[in-house]
Each structure stands twice: as structure tokens, then as C-alpha cells.
């Protein structure tokens, strides 16, 4: 297999982009990535796009749409859309890496895009709920938020975290989001704000939940040997793994950990030849605050039971040994679902290239991104390395 490098990144603002269409944000991110790679666009020979639901914009065949509006259809470049709930973007990135590594493609554009605010909140929530088991969770009256709330309740009951520790994930996210010009929320919040916000699914409140957003992100991949000759700043893809688990949360032995995360992370560390303690910066899938805490434990970045304390005490800020979600995470940067997994890769790449502006993590060598679908039914782990 060939080693793979990221040579360009592009991202749009995340938020309620009412004046922009799905196709316009998708193309904006892609063009920025091509420009950043010093290319014209005609070099691209394959497209992978993470996009969760056609129901948000009532459009199937997203792959063809992107190929067309990105100017790739006139060159007949193949395009593939991937869907894995919240992990759609992470899976697109892995498919792109595999395409380069295998030798099937030489220049791949990986995009992620979602346009969620063309629907009202209730319609969007129903679509998100269907990333859990629609037949045996959704139709019984359970929502995706309530599933994460039940995880939170059980973790608190087992003494693994406290309510305040869970809430502190949102505080860290907003501190970082305030430094990110592309973030949906740029306001610093207090722990009390999270704890006193309106209940969504008790014990989780509004400020425990990532927002519904519009946005897109893209990266350009080439073989590592090619990247060395291009004269652009690039990072190496050291590992990208994926793991599955049951669709329904209630089918698991333990709901306080996502086994797909632990399995994929273990494999990724092995492939990259590093350990969890070598990670300097991580972008994890905090669609709910409790999920962010679970990630810190499941990724081995903190011992079980110690992650919450570390976040609450501010030990994961941008100036920490291991910086958590410097972009603001899903919570503050925004959560256009299919774009998220790719946006994480963009953020880690910027961090490792020292191009993250006023949220730069100092001397970062290894960065990790975790993308999660449903309640941990699909997880991708990517490890990037500074050159």
C-alpha cells in the first residue's frame, strides 16, 4: 500500500447559512481545498463525499450533484457518496485514503457537506433520530438525545462521571469556538449556563447538544511520495480505521463505553506505531457532551473515571499537553452532520501545519480525529502526523 498525504484543506463557515444552497457550500469548500493544494482542479481523478441524509434537501444522487457542480462531471471523474449517520464524513475520508493507498486513484478530493436548516427543527430531529434503530428505538418513542441521556444517567449512576464533568465538555468547546472565525457559536459560556439550560432529554439540556447546522469541508489527498515533490505544506495520514457495533444501543453489553471507538483506536495506534499518550491534539465527536467524555476514555487519552475531572479542571485546553476540540468541536463549531468528520480532518491538518491562527496548539506532532455514527454503531479513527 502507498502512504497517503493531505496537501490541501478547505472549509466554509458553519451555522445557519440561509443565503447559501447545499451545492454552493459544497463547492466553496472543495475549491478552497484545491486552491490550498496549489492545483487547478483538473488533477483530481476521484471524489468521495460524506453526506448523511438526502431527506434534509430532498435530493438523492448527491455524488452526481457534487461531481457536476464542482466541474468534475465535464471530465467524467467518478464520485461516491458515503453515509454512516454521524460518521459519514469520517467514512468518506477513509474511503479516499484507501483509494490513494491502493493505487486506484492518484489525486482524490474528499468532501463532507450537509444542509440541515432548510427543514424545521422537528423535521431535522426526526432524521437524526433515524441514525439509531428506527424500528426498535425510534418508533418506541426514543429520540437520539434520549439515548445519550440514558448513557449519561448510567455513567453517573456507576460513578464514572458527574453531571458537572459532563457539562464541562460544552464549556471547553465554547472557549475554543470563540477563537474560530468559522464556528457557529463564538461565545464563552459558564458551567452554570449548561446546567441551567432547558431540558431536552433529562439529564441532558440544550447546551449539552450540538446544534443543527449547514456547512462543508474538503481535503485533497495524494500519495506521500507525490506530496514531497509538490512544494506545498502537507501532513501524513498515519492511520485510518473503522469499526462497527450493534445498531441499537440496548443490544450492547455495556452502554458506558463505545466498543467501536476502543477497537478502532487500538488498531489505529498500532498502525501509526504510537500510543495514546503521543496524541497532542484530538477532534472528537461531541454531538452530545457525554459523548465527548466517553471519547476521551475510549480513546485511552484518559483513564476511565479520570477524563471528566481533567476537563472540569481545564486540563484539555489549547495550551494543554493534549488539546481537545480546538475547533470548538461539534458543539461550538457546529454540526452539519456529513461535513463533521471531514471538518475534523481539516482542523487537525491546520494544527499540524501550524496554520490554526489564534487557536494553534504548540508543537503538535500527532493529531487524532474520531467520527461517530448513531450511538457508536460506526466509528472512524484517523491519526495524522506533522512532517
Amino acid at each position, binding site marked *: 500500500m502507498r502512504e497517503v498525504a493531505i496537501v490541501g484543506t478547505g472549509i466554509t463557515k458553519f451555522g445557519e447559512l440561509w443565503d447559501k444552497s447545499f451545492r454552493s457550500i459544497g463547492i466553496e469548500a472543495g475549491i478552497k481545498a484545491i486552491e490550498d493544494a496549489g492545483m487547478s482542479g483538473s488533477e483530481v481523478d476521484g471524489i468521495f463525499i460524506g453526506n448523511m441524509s438526502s431527506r434534509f434537501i430532498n435530493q438523492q444522487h448527491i455524488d452526481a450533484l457534487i461531481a457536476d457542480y464542482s466541474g468534475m462531471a465535464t471530465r467524467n471523474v467518478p464520485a461516491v457518496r458515503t453515509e454512516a449517520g454521524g460518521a459519514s464524513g469520517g467514512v468518506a475520508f477513509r474511503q479516499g485514503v484507501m483509494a490513494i493507498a491502493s493505487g486506484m486513484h492518484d489525486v482524490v478530493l474528499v468532501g463532507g457537506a450537509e444542509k440541515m436548516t432548510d427543514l424545521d427543527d422537528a423535521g431535522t430531529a426526526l432524521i437524526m433520530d433515524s441514525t439509531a434503530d428506527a424500528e*426498535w428505538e425510534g418508533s418506541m418513542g426514543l429520540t437520539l438525545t434520549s439515548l445519550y441521556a440514558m448513557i449519561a444517567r448510567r455513567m453517573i449512576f456507576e460513578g464514572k462521571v458527574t453531571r458537572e464533568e459532563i457539562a464541562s465538555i460544552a464549556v471547553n468547546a465554547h472557549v475554543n469556538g470563540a477563537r474560530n472565525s468559522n464556528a457557529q457559536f463564538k461565545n464563552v459560556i459558564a458551567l452554570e449556563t449548561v446546567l441551567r439550560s432547558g431540558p431536552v432529554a*433529562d439529564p441532558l439540556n440544550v447546551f449539552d447538544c450540538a446544534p443543527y447546522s449547514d456547512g462543508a469541508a474538503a481535503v485533497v489527498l495524494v500519495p506521500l511520495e507525490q506530496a514531497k515533490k509538490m512544494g506545498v505544506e502537507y501532513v501524513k495520514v498515519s492511520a485510518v480505521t473503522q469499526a462497527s457495533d450493534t445498531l441499537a444501543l440496548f443490544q*450492547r453489553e455495556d452502554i458506558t463505553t463505545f466498543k467501536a471507538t476502543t477497537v478502532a483506536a487500538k488498531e489505529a495506534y498500532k498502525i501509526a506505531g504510537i500510543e495514546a499518550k503521543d496524541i497532542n491534539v484530538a477532534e472528537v465527536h461531541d454531538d452530545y457532551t457525554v459523548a465527548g467524555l466517553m471519547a476521551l476514555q475510549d480513546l485511552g487519552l484518559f483513564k476511565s473515571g479520570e477524563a471528566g475531572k481533567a476537563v472540569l479542571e481545564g486540563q484539555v485546553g489549547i495550551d494543554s499537553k493534549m488539546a481537545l476540540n480546538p475547533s470548538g468541536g461539534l458543539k461550538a463549531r457546529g454540526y452539519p452532520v456529513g461535513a463533521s468528520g471531514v471538518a475534523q480532518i481539516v482542523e487537525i491538518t491546520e494544527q499540524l501545519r501550524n496554520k490554526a491562527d489564534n487557536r494553534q496548539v504548540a508543537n503538535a506532532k500527532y493529531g487524532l480525529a474520531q467520527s461517530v455514527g448513531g450511538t457508536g454503531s460506526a466509528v472512524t479513527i484517523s491519526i495524522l502526523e506533522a512532517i
Partner: protein
Amino acid sequence: MAAVAKEWREIPARYNLEGSECGNCGRKFFPKRNMCPHCRRNGFGKMHPYQVSKKGKIFTFSIIHDAPAINMRLKPYAVVMIRTDDGLLIAGQLVDTDVSKIEIGMRVRSVLRILDEGGTTGVIHYGFKFVPDL
């Protein structure tokens, strides 16, 4: 009629908590599976109907305040995961109780209730919910 077919197909599980037991390893599942995820090929064709216990304890729960449109009139309502007396974990709603009094470990039993009144198809959905087992 397709919308109705989906309803009667699920009646054994939704009305009576019918799951599956693997004739190879003895593991039990709810909802039913056509193949044991542990035995795979060795268990194929050996899955039998299994009556899940209708009693158990609350394993975890949540009170839903931001409800889907179809359940708007129920809110706030409680959803639970139940550890049944025969060891399975199943999910559903907990009704006929004060939502502020729910605790992990509470004994519950399943009952047949209306789940919702139908969305666009007009089909009234029945299924199991849980009530306190006093």
C-alpha cells in the same frame, strides 16, 4: 397497504415481546434475529421463537422534554431501558407513573398500549410500554 403490512409483520414482537433463542449457543435476543451474531453460519436455521420475560428492573432512563411531533401530546414522557428478569436489555416508554419519582432499579412490567396514532398513514400503532410493578 404496505404500511399496514409493516404493522402485522411486527405484531409478535411488539405485542407480546417475542424474541429469538439460538439453538446452537442458547443466547437469547430481542427483537428477533434470523441469525445468531455469535454463531453466525453454525446457528443459521436454528433460531427459535423465545418469550422474553415481561418483568424486570429499570437499567437507565430519560425524561423527554423535546418530543418528536408524533409524541408532542405526551411530553414530558419517560423512556427506559429495562433489564428483564431473564437478563435481556430492552427499550421502551414508562407510563402510569410520576416522572419525578423514577429511579434506576425500580421494578416494572410490560403492558400493551397505543404507541402513537399514526402519522400520515392513519394506522394506530400498538406495542409494549412499561408500568411500575407494585
